[in-house]
Structures are given as C-alpha cells and as structure tokens.
C-alpha cells in the first residue's frame, strides 16, 4: 500500500558545519557516477559512429543548399558561410551529447520503483544530490564520444573539416560560455527530474519539455538560419545557451565584446532553472506518494 511521506520544513535546514561535508558527498556522487559511465567505452565508439553519420548527412545537405539552391547566397547573407556552418555542425554534434534528452536512468528507476523514499532518508539535500548525478551524466558522453568525434572531425578531407576558432579571445570566451552551457543543461535536467516526481503522468510530459529544449537549441538548424522574424526571440530564449551561444563565440559571429551579456543571459537562465527546479521539488515532495513496498 502506498504511504505518504511527510517532510516538515525543518528537515531542509542544515547546520553550518555540515555544509562542507555535504559538498564532499556531492562530489563523490559525481565521481561514482562518472566512473560508472567510463566503463562503456565500446558503447561510446558505437555511439560516435551515429554522430559521424548524422554530421556527414547534414554537411552533404547544406553543401547542396549553399551551391545549387535558388538563393544560394542566403546563408552568407544571414552571416554564416559554408565553412563556418560545417564547423558548427561538428561542434553541435559534440555539444548535443551534453543535452538532456532523457531522464537519467538511475533517477528514473528510483522514482518509478519507489526508492525515492530511500533517497529522502539520506542526510543530503535531494536537489543537490540529483544535480550532482545529472552533472556527471551530462559530462561523461562529452568526454568519450565527444573526443572521438572531435578527432574524426579534424581528420576528414578538407571540405568537411573543422575550422580553428576565429580569435583567441573568442575561443577563451566560448570555453567560459561552454561551462555555463554545462550548468544550464544540468539545471534543466534536474528540473525535469523534479517534474517527473509526479509519477502518474508517465513519460509524456517530461519528454515533451526536453524535446522543446532540443529543438530550440540549434541542433536541428543553426539558430542564425531560422526565419528572420524569430531571430530576437530565438537568441533570448533559454536554450540558445545550450550550444548556440558558445558556438557563435567560437566562430566569431558574436563578437567578444558582446560576450558579457550573452554569458550573463546563460547564467540568468541557470539561476531561474535552479530556482524553479527547487520550487517544483519542494512542492512535489510535500505530497509525494511512494510506490512499491
């Protein structure tokens, strides 16, 4: 029989001396999860082959557009030439691996099987715990599959090759922006986990909200090539920070002196996602029904 778990607001308060210890705990959650992910190296190789296949098809299709289409200069007019676009495609395939496209299977199993109850017994804040887990889940594929992909993108024939960054300062800023993108992906993934705590909804709603992120990120089509009337909206919406902003800085289509507001925008969304994620989780945990027995 399902039973209700009631948590009072008191249990959320922490004594100051335990804060340092709990951060060590979150760090080890991250480390364990990362070490687990590293075991599947063959799977990473197989996964990389899919990304390469996709990149290859995309490059072929865009080359056809840039050469044979009716308005074949439309891309350059939008501020993205073919070699920049090819670089964008490769790097987008790498950064795409960081995007939350499904809920971490560990966390999902815990929610479905009712082990959330056990998670709540730990002397750790659930949001931070899952944040650390999601962070590891975001970064692992980037390291294995991502580095295979990068290697391939540097070895293919010249017409298909990845370009070096436009400027050194742009590159450094794109690294900074990449770190914000990592935080953005993690905070969004944790928000989705919090929404998933409502077990009776099933997979549908969480998939849809993750899918929206994927579409608006620019992985389907570089955001600069979206229709002109959408350009303002598309740059300000949260998911531009997934991969489009770091890549614009890398390619130099966003100049380094505009980086401050671009990265600031990313961090603003990170802040909002964490805030909403925590709020949703608190509300859900107040009346959570633990399944199983």
């Amino acid at each position, binding site marked *: 029989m399902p039973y209700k778990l009631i948590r009072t607001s008191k249990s959320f308060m922490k004594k100051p001396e335990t804060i340092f210890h709990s951060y060590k705990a979150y760090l080890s959650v991250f480390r364990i999860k990362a070490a687990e992910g590293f075991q*599947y190296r063959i799977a990473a190789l197989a996964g990389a*082959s899919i990304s390469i296949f996709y990149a290859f098809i995309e490059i072929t299709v865009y080359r056809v557009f840039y050469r044979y*289409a*009716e308005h074949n200069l439309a891309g350059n007019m939008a501020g993205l030439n073919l070699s920049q676009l090819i670089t964008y495609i490769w790097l987008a395939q790498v950064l795409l691996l960081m995007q939350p496209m499904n809920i971490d299977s560990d966390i999902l199993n815990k929610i479905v099987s009712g082990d959330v109850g056990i998670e709540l017994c730990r002397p750790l804040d659930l949001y931070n715990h899952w944040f650390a887990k999601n962070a590891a889940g975001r970064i692992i594929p980037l390291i294995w599959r991502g580095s295979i992909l990068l290697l391939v993108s540097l070895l293919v024939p010249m017409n298909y090759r990845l370009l070096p960054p436009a400027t050194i300062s742009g590159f450094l800023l794109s690294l900074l922006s990449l770190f914000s993108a990592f935080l953005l992906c993690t905070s969004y993934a944790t928000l989705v986990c919090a929404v998933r705590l409502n077990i*009776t909804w099933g997979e*549908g709603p969480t998939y*849809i909200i993750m899918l929206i992120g994927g579409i608006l990120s620019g992985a389907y089509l570089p955001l600069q090539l979206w229709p002109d009337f959408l350009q303002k909206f598309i740059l300000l919406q949260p998911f531009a920070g997934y991969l489009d902003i770091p890549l614009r800085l890398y390619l130099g289509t966003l100049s380094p002196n505009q980086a401050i507001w671009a990265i600031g925008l990313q961090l603003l969304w990170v802040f909002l996602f964490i805030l909403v994620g925590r709020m949703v989780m608190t509300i859900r945990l107040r009346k959570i029904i633990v399944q199983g027995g």
Partner: protein
Amino acid sequence: MNSIRLYGKYIRMNLLCGMQYKGWPIMVLQVFIVVITDPIGLIFMFSRFGSIGPWTIERILLIYSMAVTSFGLAESFCRGFDYFPWKMIRTGDFDRVLLRPQPLTVQIAGSYFHIHRFARVFSGIGVISWCLFRMKIALTAIDILVLILALIGGFITYTGVFLFTSGIAFFTIQGLDWIYIFTNASYQITRCPMEYMPRTLKYLFTFFMPMLVISYYPASAICGWGDSYYKGLLALPAGIAFFLFSILVWRIGVRHYKSTGS
C-alpha cells in the same frame, strides 16, 4: 493461423496494459511532436534558400514521409524486436521464450505494443497526402497500388532491420547503437536530393538496405519524375528479399545463443 491469433492476443494484452497509464494520450502527442518537428530545419532551409532546381520542399517531404510511415508501421507492429537486444538478451529472459512451444518471432514481435507509435504512421500519411495535394498529382488506380505496395514493402524492410539487429545482438550483447543508421537515421538521408547524394550512401540504401527503393522510386513513379512504374513496384520484392536475408541472420543468431542472465 494459430500464431496469428496468438499475436493478436499479445497485442491486445499490451495495448490494455499501456492504457492503464493515464498519460498515454500525452505519449501520442509526444511522438506527434517528434514527427512534426523533425523536418522543421528542412522547412526553414527551403524558406530561406528557395528550391534546388526541380527539388521543392514538397518533393523532399514526400520521399521523407514515405520512409517515415514505413518505419512507423514496422515500429507499431514489431516493436518487440526493437527492444529485444536490451530487454531480453541482456536479462536472460529469452530462455523463457525458448521454452514455450510457439514460434519465436511471433512471441517477440508481440512482446511490446504501444498505441502512441501509431502517431508516426498517421502523421506520415497526413504529410504524404498534403504533398500529393500540393503538387496537384491526380492519383490513378495504379498510383494507389504502387503507394500501398511501397508502404507494405517498407514495413517489411524495417521489420527486417529489427530482425537483423536482434540477430546480431546474439553475438554482441550490447553496443548496438550503430544500428540506428538503418532505423531512425536512415530516413534522414532522404533530405538530400537524389542526384547530389554521395554514391556510397545511394548504393548502401538501394542494394543493401532498400530504403530508397521503398521511398524514392515509388514517389518518382507516382509523380512522374522519370522513373517507370516497374521501378516503383520493386518496393515489395526488395523488402521481401531484405527480410529473408534478415531471417537468415536471425536464425544463425538463435543457434549461437548463450544465456547471459541468471
């Protein structure tokens, strides 16, 4: 006959099982959104760049949606095979299937069924009709025959891909992600106009896995882009040929099965 009845029972059971979750209409919506948004990049590219010679957005979408519909049909009715390597071999559940005195393929094909997979089929058919309407193609009896046979051929082809994957999974146990090249990623290549498609891709998806035979050639025959009806009608035999090859792989796989679970 007996096995068809058994398959029907499996499907019914899984359908009712899936309906128990209150969220199933949302799952239908989810697949629908996936299908609708997948070609969104292509649509935006066409609106920015205009068409590529004779290749309009309707042409590309027609070929694309024929492949997607076929894939959707296979996914709706033979979903079990798609899950097979992950859910049955790795857990050792296949042992139990082997013990039952019924055909293996029927048991596995019926082991999963989700109503929301039909969303792909319905939206695919919707896009096919929209494209034909926009291109002002008047369908004759033979056109409709070609179209239906193409979809059946496509269904058999993609079922063959699932069988093929499962057959290979007996040897590899895991790490089968590359097989997506022949499933979800395969119809992405239809975004590229035929005459500009790299030869390797064209040959791979014509002579090995006949994805273009079940999408491009029938579409070309129906709309009169220069391929005869004979090529359009090849869809079904090509699908059956690939399916027979997959059955062979599957048989070899079953013979080499070693249980992994406990």
